[in-house]
């Protein structure tokens, strides 16, 4: 789960990790009040959306007076911000962060994330703050400092020293940095983060270390013990259909194509999308109804798929295991009767009790096209959408 910069900074502040003074604003008036309270110009106004590259899209501006705050805030609030990460459709800005301006001497990069290969927690840092870490990794990988921490032992001072020396910090700054890094690591662990990134982490001309930016992703599997963070989920930032699907415990991702598809199991669902594309059509979604799907989930699946107006046909691909094909076929027939499906449906079933399942579909009187195998299913669906 993603959270906003202002929320990440609240977690930082609570953990005594230095951040610029500032506050989130939902209106131009609030922005002006916050700027006045900061009591010194310039202030920085930052669009709060769940995507990076906000500066490049015009979502981060400096304001030198109350008048400028007013102008910039009214421009950014409700703007459709397009950044390299939002896609061409952009994102509507509903809140802005108003912060004190800093006298920046150096910009650094710092992040913490789990490393799947070594099952450790990795601290990454670089002197090239403000740049995408992927870009630094591609151009000059030797400039990235990587320190692995054993999660059973936790962070030790030598980890911090290694990063601090790598960043070429002065002794005075280094001391602050190490203290901050320990707090950051502990926050990462305590809050079930899957990413904490500060880009840039700045050293000010007054030799203070401050997190100018803050990005935190939370491991959704850990949310059951982070109840207060659960409320920070911002469904405005998500696809409405995906929000709806998540209410029914369906794993749904909206895509650009026109072939809706419903599959049991994530791996098979991905493979089904691939097959659709191989047959010359484009999947409209990823939808995993789960290994143990029932009639109700199939029905909800139909509803979600059909809410996407681009969908011209639906492919159902089920491998019946513990969930038998006859039970599933009943579910499909029931759901189809209830939902009245306006597009052709191709069904491919295999596995336990497949013969009974096919019989139920054939005898339903519904216009369901039964495919004999995977490729037959994909070819039929491609023919339909190509007209």
């Amino acid at each position: 789960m993603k959270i906003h910069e202002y929320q990440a900074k609240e977690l930082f502040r609570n953990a005594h990790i230095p951040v610029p003074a500032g506050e989130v604003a939902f209106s131009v008036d609030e922005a002006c009040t916050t700027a006045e309270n900061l009591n010194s110009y310039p202030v920085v106004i930052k669009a709060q959306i769940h995507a990076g590259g906000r500066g490049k899209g015009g979502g981060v501006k400096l304001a030198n007076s109350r008048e400028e705050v007013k102008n910039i805030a009214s421009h950014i609030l409700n703007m459709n911000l397009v950044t390299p990460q939002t896609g061409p459709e952009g994102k509507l800005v509903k809140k802005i962060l108003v912060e004190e301006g800093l006298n920046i001497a150096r910009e650094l990069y710092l992040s913490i994330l789990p490393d799947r290969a070594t099952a450790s927690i990795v601290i990454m840092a670089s002197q090239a703050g403000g740049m995408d870490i992927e870009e630094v990794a591609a151009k000059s990988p030797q400039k990235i400092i990587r320190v692995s921490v054993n999660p059973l032992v936790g962070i030790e001072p030598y980890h911090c020293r290694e990063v601090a020396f790598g960043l070429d910090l002065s002794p005075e700054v280094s001391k602050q940095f190490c203290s901050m890094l320990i707090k950051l690591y502990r926050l990462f662990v305590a809050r079930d983060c899957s990413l904490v990134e500060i880009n840039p982490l700045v050293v000010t001309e007054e030799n203070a270390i401050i997190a100018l930016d803050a990005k935190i992703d939370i491991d959704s599997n850990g949310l059951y013990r982070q109840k207060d963070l659960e409320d920070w989920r911002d469904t405005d930032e998500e696809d409405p259909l995906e929000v709806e699907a998540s209410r029914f415990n369906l794993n749904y991702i909206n895509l650009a194509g026109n072939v809706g598809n419903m599959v049991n199991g994530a791996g098979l669902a991905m493979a089904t999308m691939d097959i659709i594309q191989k047959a010359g059509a484009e999947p409209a979604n990823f939808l995993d109804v789960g290994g143990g799907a029932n009639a109700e989930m199939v029905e909800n699946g139909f509803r979600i798929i059909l809410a996407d107006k681009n969908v011209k046909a639906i492919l159902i691909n089920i491998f019946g295991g513990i969930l038998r094909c006859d039970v599933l076929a009943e579910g499909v027939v029931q759901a189809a009767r209830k939902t009245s499906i306006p597009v052709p449906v191709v069904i491919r079933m295999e596995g336990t009790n497949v013969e009974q399942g096919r019989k139920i579909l054939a005898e339903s009187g519904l216009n369901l096209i039964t495919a004999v195998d995977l490729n037959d299913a994909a070819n039929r669906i491609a023919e339909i959408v190509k007209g």
Partner: protein
Amino acid sequence: MSIFVDKNTRVLVQGITGREGQFHARQCIEYGTNVVAGVTPGKGGLTMDDVPVFNTVREAVNKTGANCSMIFVPPAFAADAIMEAADADINLIISITEGIPVMDMLRVKHFLASKSSRLIGPNCPGIITPGQCKVGIMPGPIHLEGNVGVVSRSGTLTYEVVDQLTKQGLGQSTCIGIGGDPVNGTDFIDCLAAFEDDPATKGIVMIGEIGGSAEEEACTFIAEHVSKPVVGFVAGLTAPPGRRMGHAGAIVSGDSGTAQAKIDAMRRADVHICADLGTLGKFCSRVFAGNKD
């Protein structure tokens, strides 16, 4: 022969009195698996069908000689259950549970490093040696005894592949789902090494998916250490970057974890890449033709 489980495996089920645990314990028993014990804290002394239930794994091991545990406890308690099993010196721990926090798995993985136990999963369908032992949630009847080893990150996609193999008359030595989580126990390399050493395995099918670099690392291993023919398949060519495709570990981040990178790695390791899931069974028939007994 087979890898990791066979007819001598003595299985205990952690969470045997829960809905899932009970259902699948029964399915395994029906398949012929020797389920010797169940563990549910507070329910010691009861029985599930004829299986005795114990309060702790250690007690179950002491009284029944269980050497393999299948775990169905909810995600919040799963890391604890895995560590309890490892501390009781269970040889093989299979965690079916989906949704364990990554932070918990990081700790588990380092804890296991000091133990002799092997962990399969979490978030996996389990393991089956057809005709001998099923420790997992896969449908038993689609499997056939034989000499193809199957290793996969997925569940139903594996069933699909196994079903096609069986229909081609290609039986399986052992089929393992290593799970769809970013941090898991047994990996592709462990399974490939075991299949390479297993005289009953003549060919291997490896099913990968987007996310991480486990397939790439496996391919480096294959190039150096695997002499048996390997068929490879990768799911997720059309998956958009930055989106988690159902499995917690199935995500393309930046340029890493793409299906294409995995397919390229397979090609370099002379893995027989099957691009068409619809005909994977037939493809394997052709590749393994020279390897049938």
